[in-house]
């Protein structure tokens, strides 16, 4: 086995996240490709949460149902995952925690006992971490380094005891591997050590920074809060103005006004919070103010499943806000795309004076994997505002439909922006015969005339073929891995990272396909509808694989679906 799926499951508050973070880091520094993703309940303590870790000697970046190794932190973990545990699953638990321990299914190891021996039951998790590292015979020094970094404020003794716990676990793991004759044959790739380990949230936040973001006003809401917290934690070094807004309405109005006044602003939110922003979105449309919106999806309607994943808000993002205006929607499928598209979002928003969305979801923002180091060049930020002179007209009607955008205080012009219909100076107008139609066209036609050069084609993988497994946003790796496994010479993936508006060549690409099957995490096929409308090729329900349980789509489910439909 050169690709192991290991799951840690326990209650909120039992420290699963620390285990996840340390393990992926240690295994990466040991030269293994890694992926981790978590699923958790909407509570702070208790319940059943789990983290899936994939450890491999090649890149693995997708959720699988399969569990090779399970480390349950409590009894409930077993029932929580019962549908995914098979004959093949190796279950390793702290001795005494699981009932049917001793049966051939569950291997009990004395995590806590050993921890207590080392000094305290608080080290139980560290013993468990050590055990996993031992199972993979990975280099333990990165673990020691991490423990040192984490615990040195607490004193040398604590650091040493932690390290000891790690080593004790390590030995147990190694021994188990030998006793059970486990064939975890992972060949480390030294280059992996030089890569970065990063999740979706971090990639979006870093992308924003690379795009010159220096303002965020948002209201906490899972799963979008990570971007707010990340930017806040680097506010000082990068001069980012952070405001935890009183509500989402305030958040978007502040962000819009911030752009007006010269900042580069983002808001980060999720479905319900975004609903509240939609009037502000319309304001942005009317005033031709740039804006970047991170919309991290979760299952709805209403409060729904606050900590789960979904792709239910695509249609909403396309149509939200009353009246008509232009917008652009990115739905990154990979960490690299998340970074790059968010960076770009700022430049496009600025240049075209439109709102640009980053449409992610809980699965995407909470998943980590290793990627080659991100590089940025010195032109990562493209500023599009101008110094104004007297007589400046904010809404000058120009050839290409764009009016140069000024900033109050930069030059002598007065920047006059109005949410009412307005003339070129931004003054309110009721001229229905000329100004109103001209201004409507200016706003709406950005889509047709201007975005042409900006629109991107979907990713086709591995190459153009007869049949397509189509997906968008966070399903990139899930579908890609399924296509890889199926090795069907007629089948390729078509992944959309830019979902609205669609490139005109998509009509041809989809039109020419023999068969298509669309994978989406919603119950109605929102992207399928969009594609049908755009291409004129009606995609019936039988060709839509819709998953709306709140869990991420798995590689296995994609494979089964494709096989059943004869792909």
């Amino acid at each position, binding site marked *: 086995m050169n690709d192991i799926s290991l799951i840690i499951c326990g209650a909120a508050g039992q420290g699963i996240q620390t285990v996840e973070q340390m393990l992926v880091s240690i295994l990466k520094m040991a030269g293994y490709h890694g992926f981790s993703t978590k699923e958790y309940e909407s509570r702070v303590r208790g319940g059943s949460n789990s983290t899936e870790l994939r450890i491999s000697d090649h890149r693995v970046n997708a959720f699988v149902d399969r569990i090779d190794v399970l480390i349950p932190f409590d009894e409930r973990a077993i029932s929580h995952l019962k549908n995914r545990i098979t004959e093949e699953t190796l279950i390793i638990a702290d001795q005494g925690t699981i009932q049917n321990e001793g049966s051939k299914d569950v291997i009990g190891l004395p995590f806590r006992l050993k921890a207590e021996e080392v000094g305290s039951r608080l080290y139980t998790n560290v013993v468990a971490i050590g055990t996993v590292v031992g199972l993979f015979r990975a280099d333990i020094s990165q673990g020691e380094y991490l423990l040192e970094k984490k615990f040195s404020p607490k004193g040398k003794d604590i650091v040493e005891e932690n390290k000891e716990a790690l080593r004790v676990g390590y030995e147990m793991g190694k021994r188990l591997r030998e006793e059970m004759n486990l064939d975890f044959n992972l060949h480390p790739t030294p280059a992996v050590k030089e890569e970065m*380990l990063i999740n979706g949230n971090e990639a979006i936040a*870093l992308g924003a920074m690379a795009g010159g973001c220096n303002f965020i006003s948002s209201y906490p809401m899972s799963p979008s809060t990570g971007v707010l917290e990340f930017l806040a934690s680097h506010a*000082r070094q990068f001069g980012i*103005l952070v*405001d935890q807004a009183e509500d989402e309405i*305030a958040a978007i109005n502040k962000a819009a006004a911030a752009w007006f*006044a010269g900042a580069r602003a983002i808001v980060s939110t999720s479905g319900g919070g975004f609903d509240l922003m939609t009037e502000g979105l319309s304001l942005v449309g009317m005033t031709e103010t740039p804006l970047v919106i991170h919309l991290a999806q979760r299952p709805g309607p209403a409060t729904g499943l606050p900590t789960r994943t979904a792709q239910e808000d695509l249609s909403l993002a396309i149509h939200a806000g009353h009246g008509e205006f232009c917008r652009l929607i990115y739905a990154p499928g990979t960490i690299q795309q998340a970074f790059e598209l968010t960076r770009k979002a700022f430049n496009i928003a600025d240049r075209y004076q439109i709102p640009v969305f980053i449409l992610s979801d809980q699965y995407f923002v909470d998943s980590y994997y290793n990627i080659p*180091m991100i590089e940025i060049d010195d032109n990562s*930020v493209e500023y599009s505002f101008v110094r104004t002179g007297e007589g400046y007209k904010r809404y000058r009607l120009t050839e290409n439909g764009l009016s140069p955008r000024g900033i109050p*205080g930069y030059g002598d012009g007065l920047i006059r922006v109005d949410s009412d219909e307005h003339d070129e100076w931004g003054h309110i107008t009721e001229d229905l015969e000329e100004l109103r139609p001209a201004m409507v066209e200016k706003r709406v036609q950005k889509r047709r005339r201007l975005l042409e050069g900006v629109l991107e084609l979907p990713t086709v993988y591995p190459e153009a073929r007869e049949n397509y497994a189509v997906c968008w946003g966070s399903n990139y790796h899930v579908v890609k891995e399924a296509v890889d496994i199926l090795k069907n010479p007629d089948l390729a993936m078509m992944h959309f990272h830019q979902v609205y508006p669609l490139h005109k060549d998509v009509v041809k690409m989809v039109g020419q396909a023999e068969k298509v099957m669309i994978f989406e995490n919603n119950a109605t096929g929102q992207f399928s509808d969009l594609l049908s409308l755009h291409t004129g090729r009606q995609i019936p329900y039988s060709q839509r694989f819709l998953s709306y349980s709140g869990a991420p789509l798995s590689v296995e489910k994609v494979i089964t679906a494709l096989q059943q439909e004869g792909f």
Partner: protein
Amino acid sequence: MQYNQKDYEMPHAKAWCPGCGNFGLFRSLREALAELEIPPQHLVMVSGIGQAAKLPQYTHAHMFNTLHGRALPAAMAIKAVNPEMTVIVNSGDGCIYGEGGNHFLAQIQRNSDIVNIVHNNMVYGLTKGQASPTSLKGIKTKVHPEGVFNEPFNPLAVAIAMGATFVARVYQGNREQTKNVFKEAIQHRGYSLVDCFVECVAMNKVNTTEWYREHTYKLEESHNIHDRTEAFKRSIEVDPYPTGIFYKEEGKPVFWEQCTAYRDSKEPLYQRMLDHKRLRELIATFK
């Protein structure tokens, strides 16, 4: 440079009714601006939607005319991003205390360094006469044919309760007082609330010029504007309603200067460029 009140007036015709109290308010504001010699290029006028909210349309300055109820968050952001600007919010009682009530609370908590002039005509003017949060009990409207019965919103008392640093009320007909309070509000560092009684001659037949004259009086010179409990007590006085500055607190830090973004630089954000080196260093930490 010397300024005249006319320097702050746009040439466009005003869409207000003849006799509307907004004219007088606007005149006093222009005079205050001229006396303080605030260059139009350094002045950002912000408003929501309503009759009052049209004022920035007529003011020769930068303008951000936002949505109904949303002037305050916009103004806060503008000042925070571009602190060299003088930021003034003009909007109606419905806009600020009704639709925008939550932002009213939040701005006071932040002590944003902005001026908030609320044109309190105790009615929804633009939408033709529905009750506003400050409408007095008993007033009849099409939505309240048997009379309004909600407790009228008391902006001064709430502002004082929230810890606002400048709380005043004026009646626009008292031109001198109005101008002077506006000047003090603009000069005050922090969130300055000026609730300004104005007539809506078209939609409010109760709170007329005569009514305002009869039902208001000026706070005594001796009123201690630094005593919060005293200020509260005066703020809940009704009929007659005191006018003047009720409460003032100097020296409290304002929002933008407390933001981390200004810890190491006071430059407006648009003048700063991304530090790529630092960003590369940050990215490197993900290894």
